[in-house]
């Protein structure tokens, strides 16, 4: 079976923050088009670092980053947005003392002079998350954690990306709302949006993902299709051991 060219790919990358401690070592990862790719692993495994590298926020010291099969190592984040890729990072990425609407407007920076397109992008975010419309004149920092998450998701999706990178989108969010967010993520491929989902919630991640990577200490531990993960008891136990979480629990 010929595999499609990944939308995004890491090829044997080494990544360091400061000095020469390599946080990622020879990591590889492919984000398959139209699918949900999951990434799991214990705290500090390098999941966020991998995502930030895939988005140009960090430059690998070795190895390559690819978009649509083209090597783009060292490309700045705004060029990723131009190529239809958005990131919702693990840490809050809002501008707290700007209004909800200003936060959305800033996401339209690259086409800010095209007023019609900006208005359309804002409408799209408001249609997807009506709460944002009600709160549009409020400071982003004045909203609840869950609402802020919606704003981040709305902001990423307002640009009609081809692919979104989501880093623990439901962390610190009430279970009911989290379930809604997973539903939402699950529906993204039907809208033609490719997803890379980093999650601590292994069970949910394996449930919505098509393909799952397990990372450990900056390296690939194992990866496989989601069905392998749910069917194979050995694999399940292995993950339970690494991630300290049982998929079948």
């Amino acid at each position, binding site marked *: 079976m010929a595999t499609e060219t990944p939308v995004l790919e890491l090829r044997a990358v080494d990544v360091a923050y400061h000095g020469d401690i390599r946080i990622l070592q020879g990591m590889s990862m492919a984000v398959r088009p139209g699918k949900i790719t999951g990434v799991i692993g214990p705290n500090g495994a390098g999941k966020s670092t991998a995502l930030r590298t895939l988005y140009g926020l960090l430059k690998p010291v070795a190895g390559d980053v690819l978009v649509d099969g083209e090597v783009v190592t060292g490309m700045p984040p705004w060029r990723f947005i131009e190529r239809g890729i958005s990131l919702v990072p693990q840490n809050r990425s809002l501008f707290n*003392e700007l209004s909800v609407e200003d936060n959305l407007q800033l996401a339209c920076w690259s086409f800010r002079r095209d007023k019609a397109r900006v208005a359309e992008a804002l409408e799209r975010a408001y249609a997807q998350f009506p709460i944002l419309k009600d709160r549009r004149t409020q400071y982003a920092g004045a909203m609840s954690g869950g609402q802020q998450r919606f704003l981040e998701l709305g902001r990423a999706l307002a640009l009609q990306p081809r692919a979104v990178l989501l880093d623990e989108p439901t962390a610190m969010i009430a279970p009911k709302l989290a379930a809604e967010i997973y539903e939402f993520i699950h529906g993204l491929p039907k809208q033609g949006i490719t997803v890379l989902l980093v999650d601590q919630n292994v069970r949910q991640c394996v449930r919505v993902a098509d393909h799952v990577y397990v990372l450990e200490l900056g390296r690939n531990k194992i990866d496989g299709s989601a069905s392998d993960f749910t069917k194979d008891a050995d694999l399940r136990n292995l993950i339970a051991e690494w991630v300290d979480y049982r998929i079948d629990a």
Partner: protein
Amino acid sequence: MEILVLNGIVNGLIVGGIYALIGMSLTLLYGVLRIVNFAHGEFVIGGSFLAYALFSNLGLAPLFSLPVAALSFFAMGWGAYYLLLPRLQKSDDPEIMSFLMMYGVSIALAAVMLLIFEADSRSIDYSFTPISMKVGPIYVSTARIVAFGIVIVLAAALTWFLFRTLPGKALRATIMNPEAIKIVGVDVVKLSAFAFALASAIAGVTGVLVALVFPAFNPFSGAEYSIIGFIVVVLGGLGNPLGALLAGILYGLAEQLATVFLPQAMAPIVGFGILVAVILIRPTGLMGWRAQR
């Protein structure tokens, strides 16, 4: 006595307006670029010398030097950014490196001004007619009144730009969350170059106003304005332009009123006294904003 106090207040507002502009541009640089611009005072004095040179060589009145300073300093700032910053970014601690680098730039700029203009104190031998105006019971030089009017227009324009336009909001957004501005797809290199150019332009224009308001300047006056700028930035809260505006005016008032009540030599000590008090009592600045890092 009342006249003296009134004099102190009026002059405090005028001088404070100048300090506010210096502080606003300096705090913008720090907030957006994390650059501690030790050479900011030399940028300012460079503007004063530009106005001086244009007047003594071409007879151009200081008011006409304002747009010249704005444009030329904007262009120089833009160029300097692309020259200096890539070198900074390579360092492990760009913030400390920026301090050292800009300290070097400050010495170099002072030396260049010394070469061109020599060490004598200069002033622009230009006067408005009438030379002074009556404000209530006191007389204020027309040059100071004109300068104050320009300060108000500039401060208002800058505030409008920062709070009402998208590029201005992008600059503030960078101060609030420097990583997020990259994530939403703003080309931070270009935005930073713009911030550096804008801050340089404000410094240059402020320099022209310094030449109008203060009796004289020389190639070494820059250090004094840098220090006042830093005091204002800390008083206003790091990276807080509105705080700097307020702090600049308060600092100017304190300094000028101090000359009314205290011996002349004490005036600079008052400034430091305020700084120390604020650092001890309200380390986040007068407006109490958390330092957004």
